[in-house]
């Protein structure tokens, strides 16, 4: 693509001085004036500066760091910082700094391939796609679309993720899921069931304003390092970050305090804090609770008394004085927030954990404000977007669900959209696409957490007519799934599996070359080889400008989807001309959570003008001359909800201290106006400072705000969206206007809500302490399935009982727990030493299952060793030093890992990172791989040994706690690593010894 093709129409937003060079900015690309040094030609050696700088966003974590890629002759030759992106201010971590190595990696999938008679054979795109489509159609006709499994990706752009849901929807199945299942599904369900939607209530920059931040089950310095720049500012201003978790992590060392508790006892820990706050300190915020929260009294009477400090101390292992001191710190704060990630979510009662965290914040009255609420940190770069756009077995895009209303809504969107030529009705979807199987159409599909059970169909009951015969795996590393050995078995039983990815990933390691499963490898383009939007953990949406064309013979994800849809016979629903057309369809249809106002033009305008957004609140500087009214008052990235194309975005959720037109709102009135006991589920009236009209009352969600579609402009205001924001009309007025416009609304149902006032379409509801629709109406402490405290299981804290048809599978955590009740005894080793609690987590250099980062030379070099962290005293008992091989045995696997001797873990815990594969119970899996498909560094997959228990609501996997014994490995057990990996490991071990 030559420079002359770049769109020059956006000169309104030109800026000079980018990156401190003479530069002309055009769209997302900056053309560089070549300095003298460069005129000597790029042959002189590095640093290569390229002809152009392209603005983009890192592909790794959900902070959403902006950067420039330096491009020359359609090649990425380097990187430059993007200093005025308000989120990261130019900063990156090792992963963001190595993007060029990922894009240009030798180990990328380059050509479409099929495994034929144990050999990888190259095929053309126009042979392989029809073959795959043909086989999918055969299965659809012979058995049904439910016999297929689709897994999408947290790394897809919003546009690709949206199509990732649309494709299987029209193919005819809900068996579609992605990494959010195993990452924050418990957050999404838990928090949505507490105050409206399950997302980070603020954003990275708001962390600058922290007064007291409880970080429970998150290690941001490792997982979200660049965000820490904002956390540091808070500390400089006197704010405190307090880490509560089993390990003394990197974050604990940099934080202001550290409290320890046993992995898997979060609910008890939090309830102990609430107990002290309420019963001893009387520091709960009665006014806030009275006015905006439901269920506190019953909670206090029926649930809390059991969690007195002595009991909690026994369960958690935390001394009573520590519980008291932490509770006091939180109570004394002007405002506090509770922050978590996988440490909190990945448990059999993970939904309970997340709810408990929010309940703590509600009790203190610290919710719904800046530096308050719950700064929840998502994982992958676009797991937020992929979740929002419904790559989820339980819902269509936008959390609409799977009932008839949801399908009808999306049928309308897919018909009305200007982006495609196709039209479809609900009847067509039901009768033709779902073959008339309404039950399956409206039923949660199979989750990615246990997809293998639907293939194996042996140990657990399956609640769909047939097992899964084939799977499409689109950007997900299998090593992040627990029961990894079953994953391997399932792959062997499939008729075929398609891996659409940048790298061959774990499927290439697990596949038996002599087996019967057909394997297709389709090369996908990276996020830098296609344009598209991405949503970070702060709900902010940015645009990745395409830097270079797809490498080798890879294709953009959305283009592959388009072509596959064509082969499957419904290409008319995917025939978009440009990627922005998909964004506009998202704007049109995703009205529940306000993905409407973030049009491609607005998103790109924000990217172009990062310098106009202040770093304190990400707000466009109102005094700046250049703003000229277009972005006045916008928040960077228009964090959703943005209800229409003039709405600035919502940086802090539920913040009632701002007018709705400026991003203000209340708790979502999600459960109607009355609870099951007739209690009022709307907030009490109040008189905010920003309102001259007297009282603002509690109101329900505005009728049909999420289903009425605008006529022309996909991001335009509809009646309910417009009326909500206006201060001269009421909910009742809205209902009347809708009825007059021909919509099926009965205004009399809204008669009592006749106070003209400005609101968000979510109404003004209450947060719930009690989630009456969940199995555990209040969170409860439940022992891990594999527990060091069987006595607690017998004395009141077992896992949930068996349930049928849980995402089409039988789930029985109680049975798994009983089967493992003697594990703590059985794992006592020959020397009589008791087992450890084994937990797992992240390393800064790697993301996810490591399929991408372990193929990146810079990252693999810096982190070349899979390890198990063990306390020095315990290591000494076993004669283990850092680097020595050890057998780590859980009830479910006998793994071989290298020791990392450190005081980060307490004496009774172990920690292992999950980013590793290539070794399975000591067996090296990569010997048969073609050289270019072999990762630089390999290691044991800890998820072969983690517990086979799953969250009662979402089927989140319990990867944070099991039991393990550790013994030195015998020499014949030690897997052989490559010379290069061994030499890198030596450097790695020596760097720690040097100091």
């Amino acid at each position, binding site marked *: 693509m030559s420079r002359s093709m770049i769109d020059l129409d956006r000169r309104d937003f030109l800026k000079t001085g980018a990156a401190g060079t003479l530069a002309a900015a055009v769209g997302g690309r900056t053309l560089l004036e070549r*300095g003298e040094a460069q005129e000597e030609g790029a042959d002189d050696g590095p*640093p290569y500066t390229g002809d152009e700088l392209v603005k983009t966003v890192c592909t790794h974590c959900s902070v959403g760091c902006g950067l420039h890629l330096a491009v020359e002759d359609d090649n990425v030759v380097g990187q430059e910082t993007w200093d005025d992106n308000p989120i990261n201010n130019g900063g990156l971590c090792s992963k963001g700094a190595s993007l060029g190595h990922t894009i240009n990696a030798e180990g990328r999938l380059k050509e479409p391939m099929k495994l034929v008679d144990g050999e990888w054979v190259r095929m053309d795109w126009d042979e392989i796609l029809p073959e795959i489509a043909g086989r999918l159609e055969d299965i659809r006709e012979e058995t049904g679309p439910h016999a297929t499994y689709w897994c999408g990706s947290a790394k897809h752009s919003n546009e690709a993720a949206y199509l990732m849901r649309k494709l299987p929807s029209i193919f005819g199945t809900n068996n579609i899921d992605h990494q959010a299942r195993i990452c924050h599904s418990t957050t999404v369900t838990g928090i949505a069931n507490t105050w409206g939607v399950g997302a980070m209530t603020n954003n990275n920059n708001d962390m600058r304003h922290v007064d007291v931040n409880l970080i429970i089950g998150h290690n941001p310095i490792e997982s979200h390092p660049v965000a820490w720049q904002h956390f*540091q500012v808070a500390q400089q201003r006197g704010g405190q970050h307090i880490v509560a978790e089993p390990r003394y992590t990197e974050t604990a060392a940099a934080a202001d305090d550290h409290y320890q508790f046993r992995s898997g006892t979060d609910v008890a820990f939090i309830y102990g804090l609430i107990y002290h706050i309420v019963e001893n300190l009387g520091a709960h915020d009665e006014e806030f609770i009275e006015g905006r929260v439901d269920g506190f009294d019953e909670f206090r009477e029926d649930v809390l008394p059991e969690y007195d400090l002595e009991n909690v101390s026994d369960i958690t292992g935390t001394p009573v004085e520590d519980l008291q001191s932490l509770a006091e710190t939180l109570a004394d704060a002007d405002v506090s927030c509770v922050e978590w990630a996988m440490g909190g979510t990945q448990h059999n009662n993970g939904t309970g954990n997340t709810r408990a965290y929010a309940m703590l914040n509600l009790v203190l009255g610290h919710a719904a404000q800046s530096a308050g609420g719950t700064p929840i940190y998502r994982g992958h770069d676009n797991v937020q977007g992929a979740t929002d756009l419904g790559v989820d077995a339980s819902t269509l895009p936008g959390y609409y669900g799977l009932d008839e209303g949801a399908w009808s809504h999306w049928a309308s969107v897919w018909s009305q959209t200007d982006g495609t030529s196709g039209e479809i009705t609900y009847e067509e979807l039901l009768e033709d696409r779902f073959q008339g199987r309404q039950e399956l159409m409206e039923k949660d599909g199979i989750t990615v957490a246990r997809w293998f059970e639907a293939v194996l169909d042996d140990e657990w009951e399956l609640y769909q007519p047939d097992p899964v015969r084939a799977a499409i795996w689109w950007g997900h590393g299998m090593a992040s799934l627990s029961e990894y050995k079953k994953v391997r078995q399932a792959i062997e039983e499939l008729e075929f599996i398609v891996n659409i990815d940048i790298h061959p990933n774990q499927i290439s390691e697990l596949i038996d070359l002599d087996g019967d499963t057909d394997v297709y490898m389709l090369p996908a383009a990276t996020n830098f080889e296609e344009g598209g939007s991405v949503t970070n953990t702060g709900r902010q949406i940015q645009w990745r400008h395409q830097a270079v064309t797809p490498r080798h013979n890879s294709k953009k994800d959305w283009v592959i989807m388009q072509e596959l849809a064509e082969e499957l016979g419904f290409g008319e629903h995917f025939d978009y001309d440009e990627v922005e057309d998909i964004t506009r369809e998202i704007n049109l249809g995703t009205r529940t959570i306000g993905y409407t106002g973030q049009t491609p033009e607005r998103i790109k305008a924000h990217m172009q003008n990062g310098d106009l957004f202040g770093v304190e609140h990400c707000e466009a500087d109102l005094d700046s001359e250049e703003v000229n009214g277009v972005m006045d008052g916008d928040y960077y990235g228009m964090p959703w909800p943005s209800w229409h194309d003039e709405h600035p975005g919502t940086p802090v959720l539920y913040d009632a201290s701002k007018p709705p037109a400026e991003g203000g709102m209340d708790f979502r009135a999600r459960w109607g106006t009355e609870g099951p006991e007739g209690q009022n589920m709307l907030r009490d009236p109040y008189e905010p400072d920003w309102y001259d009209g007297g009282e603002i009352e509690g109101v329900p969600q505005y009728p049909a705000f999420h289903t009425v579609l605008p006529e022309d402009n996909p991001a335009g205001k509809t009646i309910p969206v417009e009326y909500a924001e206006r201060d001269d009309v009421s909910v009742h007025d809205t209902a009347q206007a809708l009825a007059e416009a021909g919509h099926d609304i009965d205004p009399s149902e809204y008669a009592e809500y006749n106070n003209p006032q400005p609101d968000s379409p979510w109404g003004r509801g209450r947060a719930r302490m009690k989630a009456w629709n969940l199995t555990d109406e209040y969170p409860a402490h439940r022992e891990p399935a594999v527990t060091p405290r069987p006595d607690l299981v017998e004395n009141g804290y077992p896992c949930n009982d068996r349930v049928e048809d849980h995402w089409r599978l039988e789930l029985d955590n109680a049975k798994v727990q009983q089967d493992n009740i003697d594990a703590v005894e059985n794992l006592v080793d020959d020397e009589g030493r008791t087992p450890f609690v084994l937990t797992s987590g992240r390393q800064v250099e790697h993301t996810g299952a490591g399929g991408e980062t372990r193929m990146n030379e810079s990252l693999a070099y*810096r982190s070349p060793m899979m390890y198990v962290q063990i306390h020095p005293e315990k290591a000494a008992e076993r004669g283990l030093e850092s680097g020595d091989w050890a057998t780590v045995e859980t009830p479910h696997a006998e793994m071989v890992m290298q020791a990392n001797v450190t005081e980060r873990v307490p004496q009774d815990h172990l920690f292992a990172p999950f980013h590793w594969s290539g070794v399975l119970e000591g067996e090296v899996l990569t010997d048969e791989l073609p050289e270019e498909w072999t990762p630089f560094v390999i290691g044991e997959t800890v998820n072969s040994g983690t517990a086979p228990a799953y969250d009662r609501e979402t089927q989140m996997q319990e990867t944070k706690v099991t039991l393990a014994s550790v013994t030195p490995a015998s020499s014949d057990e030690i897997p052989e690593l490559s010379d290069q990996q061994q030499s890198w490991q030596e450097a790695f071990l020596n760097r720690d010894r040097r100091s």
Partner: protein
Amino acid sequence: MSTNQASGPARVVPNWESCIDCGACEVACKRTWELPQESNRISVVRMAHGTEAEKQKPMQCYNCTEAPCVDVCPTDALRFREDGTVRVSGNRCIGCHYCGVACPFGAPQYPDASVPEADEMNPLGARGNGLMDKCTTCEPRQERDLEPACASECPTDALLFGTPDELSEELAKENRSTPFNDEAASVVFGDDADRVMPE
């Protein structure tokens, strides 16, 4: 042999109040210069990890005013240039490691990786084949008014870049300090040490 420069060259110095061992500096350096992985021109040194004394500091060559490496080099491969920077010339270096022993900061690297001869002769190019390689403070980037890649990409202001005057201002700010004790500071900054280092 020290320079008479009043203000000395621009240097990158570590601010160990805020380093979080994210590795951006290491990766940015190797990427920018296409260095072999073993060439740790900048490297985060970890201290007492897992204990209350836990700390880390990104370390590299500081083009010391009183550079010990220049003093001990037996072949005169290490020299001061006019601007006060220290450079090693590939055709004189014999890879004896004396400079590595003398340097208080561990800056000299001796990557084994083979590097084309042309690169070795370039004073700013990567060294290999066992010869000494070290940070060049990204001189070609400085010529374009850009900061060294490491300081530029650090997300937490753990690498401060500037002339002695500029560093003096930076280090006077809150939550800024270097791991240099008095002796180290005078090796790096010479007579400027008192002016640059905060009290």
